[in-house]
C-alpha cells in the first residue's frame, strides 16, 4: 500500500496542483517512481496506491502499471481514491485512515504481510530483505529506520533500537513522534511491514477511539502501548527526504557531481514513458556554441546556450547566450536568448523571455532557490531575485518591476 495522497505544503507551489509523490524528479521521472521501482526490483507485484489530493497527475502517471511490470494475470496496481459505500463515505482523514477505509481491498488479497510505504521519498532499497527480516523476527510491525543527526531528529518519528541483530535491525524500545527534544535518533522512513491481523485490529481501534489517524502519531504509539513485537530494520544508505524547497533542490543536486549519491542507472529507476509522451522525443540536440557541464539532460531538449550543474527535463530549450546554473527546469520549458538563471526551479508550461535574470548574480552564489509555479510566461527582461516564489499562472503585468529577493508574486 503506497501512501501517495498527502498534500505537503512544504514544497510550496510545486505541490499546488499535484501530490508530492507526483512531483517531477531526476530529469525525467517523478518522486513516486523511486518506491515503485523498488517494489518492482523487490518482486512485490500487488500494489495499491492511496491517493486523494489532486490525483489526476498521479493517475495519469501510473497508467496501466506496465512501466513497473505490474500488469499481468498475477500482478496489478490499483489506485484507491476515497469512495462512498455501505460503511463510510469520508475523505481520508490521515494515512492510517486511508488504509482503514480500504481494508476490504486488503482482506480480499489475503496477504501474508501488509507492506505500507510512503510514495514521497527518493532512495534505493530492497524491500524483500526487510520483509524477510520481519518474518524472521515474527514481528507484529517492522519499521524501516535511518539514523539521522540528533539535531534533525525532531523532524521525524524516532525510535530507540537495541542491537539484537547488529547492523541489520533491533527491537524498538521506545518511539516518539516528532519530539521537541529527541533522546534517540533512528528516524522512521514511513516504511512498515505489518502482520495483517495486528493491522486490522489496530486500525479499527484507531478509527473507533482516536481523533487523528496517522501511522506515526497514532498507530505506532498504540502498538507500543500494547507491547507488541515491533522491530526496526536499519537502513544506512542514501535517503532523499524533502520537506522544503531547499531539500528538494539539494536532493536533485545529489544526481550530479563526479560520483552522484543518486545513481539512476544502477538503481534501475523506471518511469512511465507514456506519461507526457516522453518516449517520442528525439535525442538531445546540442548546438555549435553550447557548453554543458555537470548536468543531467533528457531527450527532446535543445541546448544552444550554457548549462552548468543543472537538470533539464524532457523538451527544455535553452537558447543562444542563455546561462542556466544550479537550476532545475521541468518539462518543455523554454529559456530565451541571453537569459540568466541561477538556482531556479521552474514548473511546467512556462517560459523565460530573452534577457531575463532570475536568482542571484552577485559575487556570492544564490543561497536560496527561486521557484516558479506552472503556467508562467516571463516577458523579456524580467528580473527576479533569489528566494522568490511565483504562484502558478501569473499575468505578465506582475513582472513589470524588479522582483526583489524573498518576494512572493501572487
Amino acid at each position: 500500500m503506497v501512501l501517495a495522497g498527502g498534500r505537503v505544503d512544504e514544497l510550496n507551489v510545486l505541490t499546488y496542483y499535484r501530490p508530492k509523490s507526483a512531483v517531477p524528479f531526476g530529469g525525467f521521472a517523478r518522486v513516486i517512481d523511486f518506491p515503485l521501482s523498488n517494489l518492482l526490483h523487490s518482486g512485490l507485484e500487488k500494489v495499491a496506491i492511496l491517493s486523494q489530493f489532486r490525483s489526476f497527475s498521479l493517475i495519469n502517471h501510473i497508467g496501466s502499471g506496465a512501466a513497473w511490470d505490474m500488469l499481468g494475470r498475477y500482478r496489478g496496481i490499483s489506485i484507491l481514491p476515497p469512495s462512498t459505500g455501505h460503511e463510510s463515505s469520508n475523505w481520508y482523514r490521515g494515512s492510517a485512515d486511508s488504509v482503514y477505509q480500504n481494508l476490504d481491498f486488503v482482506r480480499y488479497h489475503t496477504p501474508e504481510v501488509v507492506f505500507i510505504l510512503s510514495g514521497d521519498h527518493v532512495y534505493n532499497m530492497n524491500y524483500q530483505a526487510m520483509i524477510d527480516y520481519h518474518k524472521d523476527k515474527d514481528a507484529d510491525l517492522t519499521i524501516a529506520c535511518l539514523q539521522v543527526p540528533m539535531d534533525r531528529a525532531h523532524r521525524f518519528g524516532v525510535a530507540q533500537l537495541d542491537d539484537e541483530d547488529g547492523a541489520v535491525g533491533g527491537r524498538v524500545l521506545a518511539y516518539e513522534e516528532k519530539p521537541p527534544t529527541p533522546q534517540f535518533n533512528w528516524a522512521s522512513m514511513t516504511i512498515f511491514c505489518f502482520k495483517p491481523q495486528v493491522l486490522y485490529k489496530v486500525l479499527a481501534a484507531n478509527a473507533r477511539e482516536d481523533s487523528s489517524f496517522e501511522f506515526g502519531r497514532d498507530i505506532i504509539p498504540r502498538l507500543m502501548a500494547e507491547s507488541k513485537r515491533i522491530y526496526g530494520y536499519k537502513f544506512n544508505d542514501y535517503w532523499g527526504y524533502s520537506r522544503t524547497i531547499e531539500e528538494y533542490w539539494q536532493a536533485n543536486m545529489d544526481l550530479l557531481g563526479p560520483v552522484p549519491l543518486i545513481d539512476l542507472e544502477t538503481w534501475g529507476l523506471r518511469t512511465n514513458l507514456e506519461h507526457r509522451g516522453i518516449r517520442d522525443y528525439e535525442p538531445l540536440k546540442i548546438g555549435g556554441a553550447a557548453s554543458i557541464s555537470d548536468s543531467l539532460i533528457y531527450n527532446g531538449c535543445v541546448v544552444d546556450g550554457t548549462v552548468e550543474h543543472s537538470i533539464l527535463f524532457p523538451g527544455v530549450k535553452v537558447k543562444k547566450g542563455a546561462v542556466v546554473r544550479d537550476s532545475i527546469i521541468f518539462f518543455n520549458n523554454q529559456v530565451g536568448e541571453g537569459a540568466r538563471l541561477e538556482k531556479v526551479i521552474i514548473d511546467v508550461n512556462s517560459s523565460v523571455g530573452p534577457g531575463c535574470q532570475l536568482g542571484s548574480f552577485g559575487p556570492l552564489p544564490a543561497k536560496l532557490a527561486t521557484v516558479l509555479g506552472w503556467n508562467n510566461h516571463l516577458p523579456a527582461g524580467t528580473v527576479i531575485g533569489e528566494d522568490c516564489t511565483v504562484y502558478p499562472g501569473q499575468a505578465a503585468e506582475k513582472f513589470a518591476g524588479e522582483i526583489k529577493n524573498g518576494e512572493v508574486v501572487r
Partner: protein
Amino acid sequence: MRGQINNTLVLLLAGGVGSRLNILVQDRAKPAVPFGGLYRIIDFSLSNVMNSGLSHIGVLTQYKPLSLMNHLGTGDAWDFSGRTRGVKILPPRTGSKDSDWYKGTADAVRRNIDFIKAHPSKEVLILSGDHIYHMDFAEMLAVHRRKKADLTIGMMVVPKEQMYQFGAGITDADDRIVDWEEKPKNPRSNLASMGIYVFDTEYMLGLLEEERQEVDFGMHLIPKAIRRDRVYAYPFNGYWRDVGTIQAYWQANMDMLDPESGILPQDWGIRSNPYAEGRAADRAPARFAKDARVKNSVISAGCLIEGEVENSVLSPGVVVKRGAMVRDSVIIGDCRIAEEAVVDLAILDKLVNVGRGAVVGCGAGENIANREYPTHLYTGITLIGKGAEIPAQACIGRNCIVSPFKKADDFPSLKLEAGSSI
C-alpha cells in the same frame, strides 16, 4: 476521409539485405539498422503510415528478420494494435513448390495475395522500409483517386547525375508517366522512383496475374503498365534519403546535426519502439561531467559524457570517458570509449569497446579505399562491428573494417593500416 483511407491496405517491403551497409547488416535487415540516435530506419515508414491515418499493414520480411520482428512487437508503438487496426508480419512460406523465397518486389507481393484478399481494400500502398523521409500518404491517395489512376508512383526530384541509381519516369504536363527507364546511364528525366506505389487493388491483382513470371515492379511490371494503363507520378520535394550505402547512412545521420538539412524526426511525428530495446526504455537522462565538452551533436538518454564530443550522433548508453574524443562519428548504443581514446570519422555498431588510448580513424589515408570492399568504404569512414573490442593504444586506420565481436587476440598488431579489415 478516415473511413475512405481505411480502404487502403499497406504492404511494407522490409526484406531487403542492403548488403552495401556491410557489417551493419550482418545480423539484421536494413530496415532494422539503428539511425539518428533513437530510431531504426523502418520507423520512418511505419510512422508515416500511422500519421497518414492508415491502419492495416503487412510487413514483408525475409532477410534476418529477428531484430525487425522484435522491434515491431505488437505494433502498439505505431498505434497499429486495436480492434480495427493491425500489423501482420509476412515471412516467406513454402507453397506447392519448395523454392518460395521472395525473388523480387512483385514476387513478394504476389506470394501474399491471400493476405491482400483477406483484407478487402480499394487500394494497396506499397512501400519499402529502407528510407528516411516524411510523407503524407493520405494526400498521395487523394491525388491517386482524383486522377482516377490505376497506379501512382511517389517520385522524388533528384540531380540528374544520381539518376543512374533509380527508376526514372518521364511525365506529361498532367504528371502522367509516359515513359520509364530503369537505372538509366543517360537520364532523360530527374524524377526518381521512391519505391512508393499506390495501386488500385483490382488492377494490381490483374497485373500480377497476367505477368506471372515477372518478379520485380520497377524492372518489369511498371514499364508495361505505363505503356498501357493510367500511371501517374506523385512528385515529392521534401527530405528523402536512401541510406543504402555507408556514406549515405553516415551523411543522413550527420544531417540530424544540421538545422537546415530538413530532417526533423520529432516534428514529423516519428515514433520508435523503445521497449524492444529492454533497458533502453528506462535510460536515465544523459549525464555530462564537469569537464565535458560537447558541441553540435545529438546525444540520447543514458549516455555519460566525461570527455569531448563534436559533430556526432550518439545512441543510448554510450560512455565517453575522461580525455576521450569523439568526432564526426555515429556511435550506436552502449559503446564505451575509454580514457584518452579517439574516435574520428567512424561508425561504431552497438556494444563496441574502444580501449584506453586507442585511435579509431587514425592518420591520413582517407583516399585508400577498403581493399576487400572498395565500393563500400572509400571516403575515410571506418566501420567497427557490434561487440568488437579495440585494444588499448591500437591505431585503426581510415576505411578499415573490424568485424563484429573481434577481440584483442584477433588483431595481428596494434596498427591497422588504412583500407584493411579484420
